[in-house]
């Protein structure tokens, strides 16, 4: 135990002495949390809308005004021909082209049916899907309105249709604020990234400098060395988490429905998993460059397979199974459940036991992979 304290003391001294590293450890993640949380949103806004009105009628103007009124659309241009419009779309200046045919209004009244054509720039498939839904909603409401207006002219045929009304109700986040969703997730990611990178570079760095050999000729026990190495980063992780939670609370107003103790308890175990992975990588690398590369490889996979940005439910089955091995997945899931939904310990026992198992296996591997003898 005493020996461990000496290692911890030394590690802390080295961390705080490196003036180049300190801002990277503490400031960089927080700035990223502050800035990037605002950017990470799938909300589709400022859709660049343009139209070609061949009809110039009251009806066509009314339809266009509906788009004007919607806050998702931004009318950027009006074109005379489709060719003109297409060129602008090619350049990326326009997302939507609504083409209203000649005799739009007349057809609506006399032939009781008419056609609109809409072109969507679908280069970003996801946004295009959302834009499509918005457009059909606007045209749909316009449709219903004209129907009831026109019904009154020929009331003989009037039959009241049967209607199923959907009442949406958004729980836990009724304003659909994306930040409450992303801030905890990004925080998880930053905590993970900093601790994983630092720990995976740590031992291999001593290997490169030559000090590890000096340690290896001392009678220090493997577990003492690994624990002494882990502990400072463990503390670091918890400190970053705490600052991040404060920012979440006071800057982004993210609710904290569940128990803070639960979050800290989970993080404490989770950090052991990440640090275990880091030390394992470090022990198996010869240079810091190698270690970083491997750490980065896992980080990108962990990150994109974590459900942080894209829903896990939408992945194919085999990919969902892969995510079961991803520790970040559990942390992202849990921090959101606890903070936003007030999940209690009994709701997350499964994740808790998985991550604990993980921690035990990885840290055993970390200790075993540290070889004092070649």
């Amino acid at each position: 135990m005493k020996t461990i304290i000496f290692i911890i003391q030394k590690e802390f001294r080295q961390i705080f002495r490196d003036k180049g590293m300190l801002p990277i450890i503490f400031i960089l993640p927080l700035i990223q949390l502050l800035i990037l949380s605002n950017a990470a949103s799938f909300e589709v806004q400022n859709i660049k809308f343009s139209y070609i009105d061949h009809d110039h009628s009251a009806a066509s103007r009314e339809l266009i005004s509906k788009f004007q009124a919607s806050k998702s659309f931004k009318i950027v241009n009006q074109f005379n021909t489709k060719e003109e419009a297409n060129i602008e779309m090619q350049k990326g200046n326009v997302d939507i082209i609504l083409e209203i045919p000649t005799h739009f209004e007349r057809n609506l009244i006399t032939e009781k049916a008419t056609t609109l054509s809409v072109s969507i720039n679908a280069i970003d498939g996801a946004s295009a899907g959302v834009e499509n839904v918005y457009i059909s909603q606007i045209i749909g409401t316009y449709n219903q309105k004209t129907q009831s207006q026109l019904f009154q002219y020929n009331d003989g045929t009037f039959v009241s249709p049967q209607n199923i009304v959907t009442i949406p109700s958004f729980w836990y986040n009724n304003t659909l604020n994306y930040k409450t969703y992303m801030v905890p997730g990004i925080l998880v990611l930053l905590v993970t990234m900093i601790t994983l990178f630092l720990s995976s570079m740590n031992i291999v760095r001593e290997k490169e400098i030559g000090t590890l050999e000096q340690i290896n000729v001392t009678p220090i026990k493997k577990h003492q060395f690994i624990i002494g190495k882990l502990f400072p980063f463990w503390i670091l992780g918890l400190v970053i988490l705490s600052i991040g939670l404060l920012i979440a609370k006071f800057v982004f107003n993210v609710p904290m429905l569940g128990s803070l103790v639960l979050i800290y308890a989970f993080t404490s175990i989770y950090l052991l998993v990440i640090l275990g992975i880091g030390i394992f990588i470090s022990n198996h690398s010869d240079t810091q460059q190698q270690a970083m590369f491997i750490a980065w490889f896992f980080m990108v996979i962990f990150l994109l397979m974590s459900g942080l940005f894209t829903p896990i439910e939408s992945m194919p089955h085999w990919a969902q199974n892969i995510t079961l091995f991803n520790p970040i997945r559990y942390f992202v899931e849990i921090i959101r459940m606890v903070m936003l939904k007030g999940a209690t310990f009994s709701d997350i026992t499964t994740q808790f036991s998985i991550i604990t198992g993980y921690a035990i296996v990885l840290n055993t591997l970390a200790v075993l992979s540290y070889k004092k003898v070649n």
Partner: protein
Amino acid sequence: MNQEKIITVNNLTKEFGSFTAVDGISFDVYKGEIFGFLGANGAGKTTAIKMLIGISKPTSGEALVAGFDVKTHAEMVKKSIGYMSQKFSMYDDLTIKENITFFGGIYGLSRAKIKEKTTQLIQDLNLQDVADKLVKALPLGWKQKLSFSVALLHEPKIVFLDEPTGGVDPITRRQFWEMIYAEAHKGTTLFVTTHYMDEAEYCDRVSIMVEGKIEALDSPKNLKQKYNVDSMNDVFLKLARNVE
């Protein structure tokens, strides 16, 4: 001289794949002597030392260091030895005091003991002015002396010095050897590798390693007689040339 054996090496071998770095060496080192371990670059000195200090597993053969088998009781060996590698291996980004505290700590010294040792060491080496400076800023010679003193912190029975004086000026080398003598005087055994042949003259006994084997082992005086030359340098050249 006390003839108690403190290191016994028997047929020690290390192979890396098909390459035999250390080829069945056998020798004894006696308590309290300064044992010179000589050889050209690549002769296998460092590999041999690494087996003796328990950070490299022998392929075959055995070695007892301070009474413990390096194969089975490497950790016990480590308690009894000190080691100073040819590459400076203190922490550059820690101060002198902090380095001493750290290494003292992992050898299991108490805080009080560390404090006492630190004061003494800094006084002996005349480092009062720079004790709180980063090690990075020290000249090489001072770093070397510091490493040696740190290797002695836990009062080991044997100290292994792997080319301790590489790259330092003659005056510092001289001072360094004075430190070695002083330590030997206290009864510590010193196991030194070097390729400065004048330094070999300072040893009680020297062994000369050529291509993984020990070609000669005796006191410098006897060796010079045997090969009928004036200096250790010539002994060395003769042995090395035989191989070519």
